């Protein structure tokens, strides 16, 4: 997998309203943010704050009511080749009738990548997530954490410079979660990809990110953007004992608490 450089991802004055007339419900109001190349940005906020809605707008899966998303000069109004998505629920996003390798190569077929190249990329991506020998298995033969790694491998094999992750570690146990977090950090360092991570876990948001974007209020807007000055090397014990980590964590928690979504 080669390194990719991409343009900056801009979100400009994005609002999203569901329904019309008297039943209208504004979920997002005037959200603006930027994600620079090779940056890892966490979007954190309370449950029901419309984080997933925002991510779906970023990926082009959902059209905003107003405002826009662009990558450099190109508008993102529908899914584009430069963005891969790792969904929250691996059970729904991996196809049980396809083997692991097929699940990874499948999107490349649509991209018109030749078979040999597809298999090669899938193998590389699976090795990167530590599942080099699982290609011939069916998803149900793997544990939840391993299945989510397959979903990550699918994103990597797509070779998009930007990876959007929607609460990717929400449905696995705590230990697996830490492992997946570190795996993601390592991949990002090695491959130089840009990552947008949606999470409701404040520890995770701070631990993973270069910048944390705190979402909240009703309708949801950007409450604050925080630079996480924890450096590039993070580890689950040292970093989390760091007083700066504790301060950031309390700060974000306060923000979220005082601006409940519902």
């Amino acid at each position, binding site marked *: 997998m080669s390194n990719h450089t991409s343009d900056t991802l801009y979100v400009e004055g994005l609002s999203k309203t*569901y*329904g019309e007339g008297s039943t209208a*419900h504004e*979920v997002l109001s005037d959200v603006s943010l930027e994600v620079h190349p090779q940056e890892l940005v966490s979007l954190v906020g309370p*449950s*029901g704050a*419309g*984080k*997933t*809605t925002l991510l*779906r707008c970023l*990926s082009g*899966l959902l059209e905003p009511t107003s405002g826009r998303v662009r990558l450099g000069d190109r508008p993102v109004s*529908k*899914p*584009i*080749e430069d*963005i*891969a*998505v790792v*969904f*929250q*629920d691996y*059970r*729904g*996003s991996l*196809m*049980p*009738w*396809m083997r692991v390798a097929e699940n990874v190569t*499948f*999107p490349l*077929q*649509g*991209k018109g990548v030749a078979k040999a190249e597809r298999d090669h990329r899938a193998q590389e991506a699976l090795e990167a997530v530590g599942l080099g020998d699982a290609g011939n298995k*069916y998803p*149900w033969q793997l544990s939840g954490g391993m299945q989510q790694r397959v979903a990550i491998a*699918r994103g990597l094999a*797509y070779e998009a410079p930007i990876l959007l992750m929607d609460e990717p570690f929400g449905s696995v146990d705590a230990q697996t979660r830490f492992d997946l977090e570190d795996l993601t950090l390592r991949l990002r360092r090695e491959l130089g990809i840009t990552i947008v991570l949606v999470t409701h876990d404040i520890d995770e948001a701070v631990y993973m990110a270069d910048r944390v974007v705190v979402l909240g209020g009703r309708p949801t807007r950007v409450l604050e953007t925080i630079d996480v000055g924890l450096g590039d090397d993070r580890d689950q014990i040292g970093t989390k004992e760091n007083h700066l980590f504790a301060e950031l964590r309390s700060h974000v928690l306060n923000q979220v608490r005082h601006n409940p979504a519902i």
Partner: protein
Amino acid sequence: MNIQKILLGAGKMLWLPALVIAAWWVLSGTSENFYFPPLSKIFEKIIFQATEGALWENILFSMINFTIGFVVAGIAGILFGIVLGSLRRIRVAVSPLLDFMRSMPQIALVPVVIMAFGIGPEPKAFLIGFICFWPILLNTIDGVRGLNPQLLEVAKAYRIPYPVYLMRMVLPATLPAIMTGMRIAIGLGVVMMVVSEMYSSTRGIGFYILQSQESYRITDVWAGTIVIGLLGYLISVGFVAVERYLLAWYYQVERRRLRKRPARAAAETAAAPPVRNPASEHAKARLTADKDSEVVVATRKGV
């Protein structure tokens, strides 16, 4: 050891059917009752018909009609089912009509269709197809509607072309539901096959029964009836085999899910009495996926 085990397993399944047949054989052995001839006589009649009579020719005629009707209904049912399952507006508009057509007793059409189009094979295949179409259609629609919405998101996010999405994602995901519809259709199709031949025909296994009845050859009536039973049984056994093969992945997922449950449940019973959890994994997955957008949930609940 292994052979013993297999024999024992087979024995446990076979003793009752064997007993029933033996009891029938013995009890009817000396039967003088005109309507209930000895099973041995019926058996002889089947052998005779198979070796010297037209049994195979009749079976072939019935099976060809059945196969044509079923296959055409299957293709049409899946195609329309996927279209109607995906397009809400059209589905809503035709749903009362589908409801009506599904619950009408399709057999009522037999006299009209056969009087109008003759006693040949084509109207029979049409009638079989007509009765098979509805359960396949409705189950396919349900299957498409029950798809995990994340599947579509994956397809969009990774820009899977629409035909590929339909063939490699929607079709396999809907296959368990389609198979359920087909299983129902087979039962109904066999009934229609028999009725269409017994109403009026010149060939077919139903015709053999009808003809025997009209000439009071009661042993032949029994023979034909038993052959139809065996035919129906073989069709459904064959179908189950096909289903097991096509849905191997599905049964493995299901088995794993079921196997996992007792362990988890046992752990929970220690703390609190278990509450029956009716929400399937599937429904749960849908809810999580739609968490942020209630509107999506609301529209999906519609017809």
